[in-house]
C-alpha cells in the first residue's frame, strides 16, 4: 500500500457516511432508543425526529406530501416492493417493461418473474446506452402492469428520459417506477411536478447510512405492501423503524441538497478533468455511455486489451479505489451486462473502469490519478499477448491462436 493517503473514487458503489449524519445517529442507539410507536415519552421524541427526517428527505426529492415516503431497508427493497406491488395491484396485467441495463435489483427480480410466467420487455440501448422511445411506445399497452426504468445508470452514469417516459406511461394508464438510487442527491428531482408514480432511493449512495432507503409512492397510487405486520409506515412497510438510519438519512439528504450546485459544477469539473487527463495520455481508451448526458460524478473508461481487475489491483496498490465491469471482479465469466448491452467489444469490455467521484474529492487527488493511470495501463499491456511493441496487434483473434477458446 502506498504511503500517500488513499483516494476513494468508488462513490457509486457506496459513499462515506457524512460525519454530521453519524453524530446525529448516535443518540438513537443510546438515550433515544424508544420505539416511535410506543405510547410513552421514550417513543414520543423519537417519533417527532423521524418526522423531521422524513420531511428532509421529502424536500430532497420535492415530494408534495411527507406521507409519500415509505422507508425500506435500501434501494433493493424499494425496487422489489415497487414492482411486486404493481403486479399484485393489477393481477390481470402480466407484462413488465424495463431495460437491459437496470441494476440487478430490478433485472434479477424480473428474471425470476419471467420464470413465474410474466412477460418481461427489456428495452435495448444503443452504443451510447440510449433507449429508443419508439420501441417503448409500441410496448405500452393495457397488458403492462408496470414500467421500471432507472433514472441514471450506475456504471456509466447515463440518464434515461424518465420524466418523458413517465408521462407516456401515464397517458397509457400504466404505472411508472424509476430506480433513482444513483440520481437522488446528485441531480435536482421534483416529484411534485413529475408523472413518476414510484421512485427508489438508497441512503448509502448519498453519504447516508447503509441499510436504509425509501420508496417514494405518489399519493393515490395503488399499492400492495411487500411486508405485512405492524402498522408502521401507515401499514405499507411493516417492521419497527430503523430509527438511527432514518435520522442519518435525514441529515444526509439535507447536506446533499445544500451541495446540489457544488455537485453539478465542481464535482463535474473534476470528473471532466479526470476524463480529459486520462484519455489524453492513454491510447486505445474511450469513455463509455452517453457522455453529454450523464451523472456529474461518473466516468467510465474502457481500456482496450487489458483486464479490469488487474488495473484495479495496481490502482489499489497506489491507494486508488475504483471499480470495474470486468468479468473477473464479479466472479462471473461475462463482462458487465451494461457493457454487453451497449455492444462494447470484448477487447474493451473486460477493461472498463468506473471512477465515481463525490464532493469529498479534491483536485490534488484527481491529479494523482491522472498521473497514476497511464503507467499502469502500459505495464499491463506489456504483459498482454494482444499488445505489440507499439500498439494493439492488428487482428487479435488471429495473432493469438489458442488450441481451444
Amino acid at each position, binding site marked *: 500500500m502506498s504511503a500517500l493517503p488513499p483516494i476513494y473514487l468508488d462513490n457509486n458503489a457506496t459513499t462515506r457516511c457524512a460525519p454530521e449524519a453519524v453524530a446525529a445517529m448516535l443518540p438513537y442507539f443510546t438515550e433515544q432508543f424508544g420505539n416511535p410507536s410506543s405510547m410513552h415519552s421514550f417513543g414520543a421524541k423519537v417519533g417527532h425526529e423521524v418526522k423531521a427526517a422524513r420531511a428532509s428527505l421529502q424536500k430532497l426529492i420535492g415530494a408534495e406530501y411527507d406521507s409519500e415516503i415509505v422507508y425500506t431497508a435500501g434501494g433493493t427493497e424499494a425496487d422489489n416492493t415497487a414492482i411486486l406491488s404493481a403486479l399484485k395491484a393489477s393481477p390481470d396485467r402480466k407484462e413488465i417493461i424495463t431495460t437491459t441495463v437496470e441494476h440487478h435489483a430490478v433485472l434479477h427480480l424480473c428474471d425470476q418473474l419471467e420464470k413465474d410466467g410474466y412477460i418481461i420487455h427489456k428495452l435495448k440501448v444503443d452504443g451510447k446506452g440510449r433507449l429508443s422511445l419508439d420501441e417503448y411506445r409500441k410496448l405500452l399497452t393495457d397488458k403492462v402492469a408496470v414500467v421500471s426504468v432507472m433514472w441514471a445508470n450506475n456504471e456509466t452514469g447515463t440518464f434515461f428520459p424518465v420524466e418523458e417516459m413517465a408521462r407516456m406511461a401515464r397517458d397509457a394508464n400504466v404505472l411508472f417506477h424509476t430506480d433513482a438510487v444513483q440520481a437522488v442527491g446528485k441531480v435536482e428531482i421534483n416529484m411534485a411536478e413529475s408523472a413518476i408514480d414510484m421512485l427508489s432511493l438508497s441512503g448509502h449512495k448519498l453519504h447516508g447510512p447503509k441499510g436504509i432507503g425509501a420508496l417514494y409512492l405518489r399519493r393515490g397510487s395503488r399499492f400492495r405492501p411487500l411486508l405485512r405486520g405492524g402498522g408502521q409506515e401507515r401499514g405499507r412497510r411493516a417492521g419497527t423503524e430503523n430509527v438511527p438510519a432514518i435520522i442519518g438519512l435525514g441529515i444526509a439528504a439535507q447536506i446533499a441538497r445544500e451541495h446540489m450546485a457544488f455537485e453539478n459544477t465542481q464535482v463535474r469539473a473534476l470528473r471532466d478533468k479526470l476524463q480529459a487527463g486520462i484519455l489524453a495520455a492513454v491510447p486505445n481508451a474511450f469513455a463509455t455511455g452517453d457522455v453529454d448526458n450523464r451523472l456529474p460524478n461518473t466516468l467510465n473508461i474502457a481500456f482496450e486489451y487489458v*483486464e479490469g481487475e488487474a488495473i484495479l489491483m495496481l490502482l489499489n496498490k497506489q491507494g486508488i479505489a475504483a471499480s470495474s465491469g470486468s468479468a473477473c471482479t464479479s466472479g462471473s465469466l461475462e463482462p458487465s451486462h451494461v457493457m454487453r448491452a451497449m455492444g462494447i467489444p470484448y477487447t474493451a469490455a473486460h477493461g472498463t473502469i468506473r471512477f465515481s467521484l463525490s464532493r469529498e474529492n479534491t483536485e490534488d487527488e484527481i491529479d494523482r490519478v491522472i498521473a497514476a493511470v497511464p503507467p499502469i495501463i502500459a505495464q499491463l499491456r506489456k504483459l498482454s499477448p494482444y499488445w505489440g511493441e507499439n500498439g494493439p496487434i492488428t487482428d487479435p483473434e488471429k495473432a493469438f491462436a489458442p488450441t481451444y477458446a
Partner: protein
Amino acid sequence: MWDYSETVKEHFYNPRNAGPMADANAIGEVGSISCGDALRLMLKVEPESEKILDASFQTFGCGSAIASSSALTEMIKGKTLTEALDVSNQDIADFLGGLPPEKMHCSVMGREALQSAVANFRGEEWKDDHEEGALICKCFAIDSVMIEDTIRANNLCSVEQVTNYTKAGGGCSSCHEGIEELLAKVMAERGETFSPAPPPPKTKPGKLSTLERIRRIEQVIEKARPNLIRDHGDIELVDVDGKTIYVSMKGACSGCQMEALTLGGIQQQMIEALGEIVKVVPVKAVAPTKLPA
C-alpha cells in the same frame, strides 16, 4: 475485493518470466479475449533431454491469471516435459498459497497452456473439451457446465444426488436453488419434470455374473479417478466381499474432509451401476487380505 494470498499479490505485482520469447520452441495458447483471459506460454526445450531450459508468458487477464502464469513458469523451469506435466492446476494454486474458488479456473488455464505447449513441441494436436459455466457452488468451486453434464450423464434427479456426484451443494447449501434450476432444465430435456421430493430408489432386475459385476465396479472406479487426480488424490479397488467394496484412497484424498463425501458419491454410483445396495469402505493398508469386520 478478492481475498488473495500474499503470494498471489506478490506474483501479480512482480511477475516472473513475463514477456515474449524469441527462440521458444514450444508454445501453448489458451483462452481468448472474449472470455476475459488468455495465456500464451513459451518454452525453450532442449530437444534431446526434453528439459525446459527457459519459460515465459504473456497473459491478458485478472490478477490471479497473471500470478498463475508467473507461478507456472517458475514451477516448470528445469523440469523435463514429462515432469512438468505432473504439475496439476492444484499444484499451481498451492504454490500461490491458494486461490479463491471463483479463481481456480486461472490455475486450470495455466495447466492447459502447459499441455498445449507440450503438444506443440511434440507435434501433437491438443484438444480440450473443458468448458466453464457460471459458478454455482462456491464452497467447492463447481460450475454449471460440470453440474449439467453430470446430471445428464447419470440421469440425476435430486439435489442430493448432484451433491453426491459433484460435491456441489455439499457445503453451505446456499446454491441449492441454483442446482434445482439446473436439474429442472436438464430433466426437461429428457422429458421429465423436476420435483423436490427425493427420487424413488431404482433397482435393476436381473442378476449380474461375478465377472460383469467386477467389471462394472472397476468402471465406476475408473470414472471417479480423473476428478480425484485433479484434486491431488487417487482411488484403487482393493477387494470385493459380497456387498462390501473395499477401496484405498490415496494422496490428498486420504483422510481429507472430503473423503466421506467422495466415497458417498462413489457408493451411490456403485449402487446404480450394480442395481443392488452395496457399501464402499475405505481401507488404509495397501492390499490387506484380512479386513476388520
